[in-house]
């Protein structure tokens, strides 16, 4: 696993929830660099509806933890201008579904300013938002729209799957001189994991092998990594050894690590919670199918969210996302063991 290797000065570890790890990363970076500030809806006293930002306004004050009006486009635009002029904004967009409102400022302004100005302007902006269904929040509060932002040159896109990765990647995002979209699964906030003590960063563009295996490669993003690891356990019982790879940043994408694994196993499945059609799984699957072409024993399979708006009813919503069972079943078929 490359995260420990990327850890400097890490002594022991502590058990933190994903939410606590995000909170710690923000607090550390705000202590380290006073140009860092947070802006978003209900993030100060309320500490964010998901409580992830609890305590930050108390430590850093309302000038650096700003409760904003319900103006996603406006706060993103304000963030772009602040970033161009010496600050490092962390813009909080409560639900990833609201990316629909900020894309002009994100894709036409933040992502292009450096290039359009011939390298003069810089936009060190981090936009944090969320993804994920199965929260019974229905179609406008459950989307995973990472494919949209990953399609935009000039943006970096991070999807963390563990508390340790979330902390190290978020710190890297804030220090990056480019606009970074950092997307967290709402369902992950309460998930616990080991987080290295001390200061560490995790570089972008370095995939992490979450599980080593021989028979099939499962490339998974965000909380789908947990689904993939659970599927790997099921497969183990059937004598199928699955390797699980977490790209961690889908832009830049660590193609080499992914392709090498697919060449080793000869079989690959790509799992992402965004809609399947024209989604993240398409890019990664086509990269594997192209670069590992001569090593593949079977077609690369894609497992995204079903191509329907996310329904409210539990009996419907539960069948729209990949699960350990469906991933394992797909792997069995790929390996001819179903």
């Amino acid at each position, binding site marked *: 696993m490359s995260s420990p290797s990327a850890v400097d000065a890490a002594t022991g570890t502590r058990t933190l929830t994903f939410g606590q790890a995000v909170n710690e990363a923000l607090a550390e970076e705000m202590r380290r660099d006073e140009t860092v500030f947070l802006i978003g809806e209900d993030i100060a006293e309320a500490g964010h509806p998901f409580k992830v930002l609890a305590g930050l306004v108390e430590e850093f004050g309302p000038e650096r933890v700003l409760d904003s009006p*319900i103006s996603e486009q406006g706060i993103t635009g304000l963030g772009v201008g602040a970033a161009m002029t010496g600050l490092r904004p962390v813009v909080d967009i409560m639900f990833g579904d609201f990316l629909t409102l900020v894309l002009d400022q994100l894709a036409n302004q933040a992502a292009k300013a450096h290039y359009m100005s011939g390298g003069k302007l810089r936009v060190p902006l981090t936009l944090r938002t969320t993804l994920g269904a199965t929260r019974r929040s*229905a179609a406008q509060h459950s989307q995973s729209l990472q494919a949209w932002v990953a399609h935009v040159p000039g943006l970096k896109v991070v999807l963390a799957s563990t508390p340790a990765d979330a902390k190290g990647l978020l710190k890297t995002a804030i220090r990056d001189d480019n606009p970074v979209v950092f997307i967290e699964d709402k369902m992950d906030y309460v998930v616990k994991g080991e987080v290295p003590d001390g200061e560490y960063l995790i570089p972008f563009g370095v995939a992490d092998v979450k599980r080593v295996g021989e028979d099939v490669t499962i490339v998974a993003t965000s909380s789908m990594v947990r689904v993939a690891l659970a599927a790997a356990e099921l497969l183990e019982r059937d004598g199928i050894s699955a390797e699980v790879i977490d790209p961690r940043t889908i832009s830049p994408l660590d193609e080499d690590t992914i392709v090498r694994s697919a060449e080793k196993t000869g079989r690959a499945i790509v799992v992402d919670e965004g809609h399947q059609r024209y989604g993240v799984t398409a890019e990664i699957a086509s990269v594997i199918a192209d670069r590992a072409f001569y090593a593949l024993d079977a077609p690369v399979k894609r497992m995204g969210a*079903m191509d329907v708006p996310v329904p409210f009813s539990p009996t*419907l919503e539960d*069948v729209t996302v990949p699960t350990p069972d469906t991933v394992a079943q797909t792997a069995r078929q790929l390996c001819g063991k179903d």
Partner: protein
Amino acid sequence: MSATASPSKIGAEVALEMYRQMTRIRLFEEQANELYRGAKMPGLTHLYIGEEAVAVGVCSALRRDDWITSTHRGHGHCLAKGAEIDRMFAELLGKEAGYCRGKGGSMHIADHENGNLGANAIVGGSAGIATGAAFSAKRRGTDQVAVCFFGEGALGQGLVYEVMNMASLWTLPVIYVCENNMYNEYTHYLEATAGDILSRPRAFGIKADEVDGQDVRAVFARTIEFVERARAGGGPAFLLCNTYRYHGHHVGDVDRAYYRTKDEEALWRSDERDPLRVLGTWLLAQGFVDDDALKAIEDDARAEVESGVQFALEAPYPDPSQVTEDVFA
């Protein structure tokens, strides 16, 4: 009808029907809260308790074929526009018998037959839809009007200004009803709203006025004026209703001390401000009813809510195969 345009002139019949509707909403929401606390409801929901006079006062001034667009806090609008309690509970529980076959849930209930174009989980997201419905009415030469319900938090969304500009330019029959319950989730609206609210629509040439959102007769009277004006081709209007939500932002928001005081909550729950008490007291004072009559209204509503929730609890969930239906018409 402008005879009724003064609160004092509202007759017993209209007033009693409004009392009945507000009671239905109050009890529906209390039951919804129970469903959540009993872990019988998937997800969360936003209760309308305390704001009943706004939805009822406004919708009582509308025809069935007039349109409304609603919000994440939409149960009151939906019931006031004519929806049935049983199918609403069914939708809240994600059952196939619900208004949206269980696909929408609390934040997306739509009731097209009664002119409800849907609740909306995007703050301000329905402002364009309501304005477009008004455009449609004018273009097709009907005299329908459209009402856009939204919370004061939606004043932060640029879309609202884009469409108010067009509604004014094209004198569209749309009424923007701003429910100012003083909070955007957990943030007081004054921390998020600069200047003067009524000056905003007025800057776009839209007639705007303010009303006590706890007095259903006042809301009703003011709405009637705006609706008649709109039907007659007088164009858009903006009605600011000052109100308050008794419960949390959503059912899970129970510890509210960090953003508002118990005293403030008590003040708004008092006899002087509670929309049901305010109207009830007036009805009694007018001699339109006695206590027993009000009690009877409440008993009927309670029975309707109880049978409605029973229906919903027993109703089946949609079959998983329905997940791929309704993506395209």
